[in-house]
């Protein structure tokens, strides 16, 4: 009888190229995604060494972070962004890497296009110079965010030096209530364990609530694993995964599909496998979540009140809360619901997929965005945009008074001109509420697409379950 293994251990074992005494394992990487922001210095490094990209056939490039979402027309107005975008294009051309350029019909946010094109598959190791690479874990892939030195390492060798992580089972059982979604599961987890609660760990999400999610929703959950500090986050593949993948451009076809499927079915964690840590979440007990502070762990149910620093025993935690509430200009003890907001952002690698746009459109249908609110809806990719338009979602957004944009990271990272003004509040479906993340001096409340759309209508933080 073999020792029972977790899905992470199975993927790990299958990717070890070498293990030397005293050194991290050399892990083979099946897929690297590259974007314009974290790759130029890595390509410079390759040129300086005189090294080629080892496997351009396992590498894929696109532009998303610094690209405008107002128009797809060239040239890009910001000359610094334009130079960065054209640098990736020339780097991909020079090294023979397939590339979705700014005007490509499939261009989009790197973590949206990987799955959308069938590049992300179960059992793979996936890396990208981007901390939200954990998104791909929704397919049962082991997906790490890496720095630029490691981007260069993988370009040159298709390998990464890695120490094993601790395994952390996140068991989510029960049914989500009305108005509660995948985003609320992950925000609730981060609020419970904190932004450093998963450091050194890989989350394995499971349980009936996870199994019941669509692939789009599963990606939302895995996406924010990094916000709890985890190295990665993944879920066992199942029929939902296989149905999503079948027929996509880079997914295996014919006999290769059958072989892959047989392999993928072996991936789920064995009965009796041991985790280093475990936590359980009752999905039925969750409410829509919203953050009040300046890190994603500072979150609460939408019916809650802003916590009072006076009630926090730990001095460092108290100081952090005081600092956060000062930046956010919020009063302790008051509810967030009803707090006026000036901007609502729907989009990002967390919530920029078709399921997210459908959820938001469902709330906005027959309603209007409050005149005091600027609402941006930014699809995660051009295919998501086309699909939404085919379903008439763009009309719902436009008729309600929202801006319907081109695909990109947009106001999640505010590198492309889409940003908050100092002092403004937003309800955002993105992943980070750090100081200035959505624009210098901007203040972010993270929430689900349902909560964001309800807030756009109300002109203030709103509970979708009680929206008039």
């Amino acid at each position, binding site marked *: 009888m073999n020792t029972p293994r977790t899905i992470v251990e199975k993927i790990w074992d299958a990717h070890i*190229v070498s293990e030397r005494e005293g050194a991290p394992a050399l892990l083979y990487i099946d897929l690297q995604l590259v974007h314009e922001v*974290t790759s130029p210095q890595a390509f410079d490094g390759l040129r300086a060494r005189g090294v080629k990209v080892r496997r351009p056939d396992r590498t894929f490039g696109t532009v998303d972070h610094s690209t405008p979402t107002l128009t797809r027309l060239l040239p890009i107005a910001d000359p610094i962004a334009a*130079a960065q975008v054209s640098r990736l294009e020339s780097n991909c051309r020079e090294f023979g890497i397939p590339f979705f350029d700014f005007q490509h019909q499939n261009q989009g946010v790197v973590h949206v296009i990987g799955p959308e094109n069938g590049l992300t598959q179960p059992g793979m190791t996936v890396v990208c110079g981007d901390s939200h690479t954990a998104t791909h874990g929704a397919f049962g892939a082991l997906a790490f965010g890496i720095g630029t030195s490691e981007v260069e390492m993988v370009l040159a060798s298709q390998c990464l030096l890695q120490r094993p992580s601790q395994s952390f089972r996140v068991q989510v059982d029960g049914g989500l209530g009305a108005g509660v979604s995948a985003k609320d599961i992950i925000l609730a987890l981060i609020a419970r364990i904190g932004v450093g609660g998963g450091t050194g760990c890989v989350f394995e999400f499971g349980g009936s609530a996870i199994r019941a999610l669509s692939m789009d929703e599963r990606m939302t959950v895995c996406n924010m694993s990094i916000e709890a*500090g985890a190295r990665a986050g993944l879920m066992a593949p199942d029929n939902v995964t296989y149905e999503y993948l079948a027929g996509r451009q880079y997914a295996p076809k014919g006999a290769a599909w059958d072989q892959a499927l047989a392999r993928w079915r072996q991936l789920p964690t064995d009965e009796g496998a041991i985790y280093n840590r475990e936590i359980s979440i009752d999905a039925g007990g969750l409410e829509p979540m919203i953050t009040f502070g300046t890190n994603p762990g500072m979150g609460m149910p939408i019916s809650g009140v802003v916590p009072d620093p006076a009630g926090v025993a730990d001095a460092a935690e108290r100081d952090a809360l005081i600092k956060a509430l000062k930046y956010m200009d919020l009063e302790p003890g008051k509810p967030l619901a009803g707090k006026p907001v000036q901007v609502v952002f729907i989009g990002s690698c967390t919530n920029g997929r078709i399921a997210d746009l459908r959820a938001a459109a469902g709330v906005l249908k027959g309603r209007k965005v409050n005149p005091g609110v600027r609402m941006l809806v930014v699809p995660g990719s051009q295919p998501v945009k086309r699909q939404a338009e085919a379903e008439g979602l763009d009309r719902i957004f436009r008729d309600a008074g929202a801006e319907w944009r081109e695909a990109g990271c947009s106001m999640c990272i505010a590198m492309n001109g889409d940003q908050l003004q100092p002092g403004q509040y937003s309800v955002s479906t993105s992943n980070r509420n750090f100081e200035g993340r959505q624009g210098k001096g901007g203040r972010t409340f993270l929430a689900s697409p349902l909560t964001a759309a309800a807030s756009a209508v109300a002109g203030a933080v709103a509970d979708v379950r009680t929206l008039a």
Partner: protein
Amino acid sequence: MTKFTSFSSRVIWMPIDNVDTDQIIPARFLKTVSKEGLGDQLFYDWRYDAQGQPRADFVLNHPLAKGVQILLTGDNFGCGSSREHAPWALTQFGFRAVISTSFADIFKQNALKNSLLPIVVSSDVHDLLSQMVAENPFLKLRVDLASQRLMLPSGQGIKFPVDPFAKHCLLEGIDELDYVLQQEAAIAAYESEGGSPLNTLA
């Protein structure tokens, strides 16, 4: 890579937990295609006001911050984005070591690859150090990687953990990619055995 040698420095104490990489270097500075010029943008929005003037109350603007090589800071330093621009900015400012009770995983790896030493200490030691620095801003600590010790002026040494491979690379000035590329035979052997059939050029 240059070899990491032991050094002594004054210490800047930044008593903030969960410092994220968006604070270390805001995203709007990431449109660069080079590694240069990031030291001036380090902690930009904490360091400068809306007019671009240095904020007098921020530690890095204190006259004592000039030439300092050790940053003592709160728990979970470097969380958030994977941007390697964070250690590039810290090292260009002059830092060679950051002391905290814990570091975010990606930041830690990025730091080690740029000869910026992340030093993890217990919360007791952290309390002691922050108190000592608060009482004596001229206090100098010695960082000795070979013995994995933080030397106090009293001569007392505080042991800190370091991944043995990272330590070896830092002390010997070994570039990790060079080390990996030497394993060409093992990588080729792995590839010839198959692996996943993905081919993005297909």
